[in-house]
């Protein structure tokens, strides 16, 4: 199993951050890179979408989303009762872990491509579908049995027209409508540069993650443990479901990675608006400071190994 160099850019960012280097990715650039990544992933998925019968896709999607909802539903009581967190904090962190990370997904896909391992093109549809139900679940968990009001209008706008979903779905639809031939002249921009842009983005994520590491010490061992154990269990769920749905082994690795990944683009904004009494440092610290690096360095190879074992045992 060879080595994927893009993750080294994350390391470089962490080192720069810890050394308090003056290296900064301007926020305008960060914004542009994230728009690019979301659109490119959407387009990629859209182009491949036509290859699959829509009915099958709808059915499997139902399973993927339903099983995915188990993650925040199980994470919430763990955080609340084992971790003794406030209702709002537990709900917000559960929402982060129920949602998904586009960059982790991209690193996993890059990893598979480097090893010439095939996967289903419609994984990207699952990525899109998994991005938001957890956010709504998170708000319900935070509000259940309390009298606090939720700004549902703002939340729903945030969830469905938040840039993350909008660009993923927008790209998906454009790719689907246009088809491979018409998209071809855009390939040099959206596909060929993808990995380089991902490297740049990981550099920035490393810089931000470094600033979160200090926070973590304050929040303690429980949260760090949570941020490693929950992804592994979620990945296991993903591999078993993939097996059940007859996905390829590559598809199993990606579904495992989706379940294991935690959001740090869509979820923080949505939770800040809908559950403002939750402390954002906790959820972002765990998802970006622990789970993200765990996934890209150790998780993805581990999930692959899990997939191999379970598929071989099948």
């Amino acid at each position, binding site marked *: 199993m060879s080595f994927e160099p893009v993750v080294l850019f994350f390391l470089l960012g962490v080192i720069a951050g810890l050394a308090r280097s003056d290296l900064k990715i301007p926020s305008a650039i*960060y914004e542009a890179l994230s728009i690019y990544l979301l659109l490119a992933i959407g387009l990629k998925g859209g182009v491949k979408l036509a290859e699959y019968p829509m009915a099958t896709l709808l059915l499997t999607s139902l399973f993927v989303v339903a099983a995915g909802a188990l993650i925040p539903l199980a994470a919430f009581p763990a955080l609340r009762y084992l971790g003794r967190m406030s209702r709002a904090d537990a709900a917000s962190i559960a929402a982060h872990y129920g949602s998904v990370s586009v960059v982790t997904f991209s690193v996993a896909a890059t990893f598979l491509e480097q090893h010439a391992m095939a996967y289903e093109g419609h994984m990207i549809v699952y990525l899109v579908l998994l991005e938001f139900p957890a956010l709504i679940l998170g708000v319900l968990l935070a509000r259940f049995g309390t009298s606090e009001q939720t700004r549902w209008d703002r939340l729903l706008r945030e969830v469905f027209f938040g840039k993350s979903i909008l660009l993923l779905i927008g790209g998906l639809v454009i790719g689907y409508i246009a088809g491979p031939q018409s998209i071809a002249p855009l390939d040099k921009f959206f596909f060929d540069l993808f990995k380089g842009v991902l490297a740049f983005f990981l550099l920035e994520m490393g810089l*931000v993650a470094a600033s979160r590491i200090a926070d973590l010490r304050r929040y303690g061992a429980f949260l760090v443990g949570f941020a490693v154990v929950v992804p592994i269990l979620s990945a296991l769920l993903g591999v078993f479901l993939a097996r059940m749905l007859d996905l390829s082994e590559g598809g199993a690795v990606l579904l495992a990675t989706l379940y294991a990944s935690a959001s740090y683009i869509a979820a923080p904004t949505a939770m800040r608006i809908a559950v403002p009494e939750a402390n954002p440092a906790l959820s972002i610290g765990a998802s970006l400071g622990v789970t993200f690096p765990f996934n890209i360095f150790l998780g993805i190879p581990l999930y692959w190994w899990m997939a191999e074992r379970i598929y071989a045992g099948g």
Partner: protein
Amino acid sequence: MAEKSLLVIITESVIEDTIVEEIVALGAKGFTACDARGLGTHGMRTGRWTVGSNVRIEVIGDSSLLERIVAVLQEKYDADYGLLMYTMPVNLRN
């Protein structure tokens, strides 16, 4: 040269649109906003990524209007969000 008051609101970028809606709904005829970063009771906000960035909003108006804005923002946002508000008298020149 009219005597007015200036209210400066420093808060999280993520609620900029909401705050602006409140201000306008309360009767302000205008505002001016700039991106900012800073430190306060909610820790260091480096101005990077949406959830870590601040906005500095200025509103000029009669003190009664500004009092109303201060009261509403304090009640609805002070507990949960990074928020700092201060006022001072100014001479409006046009």
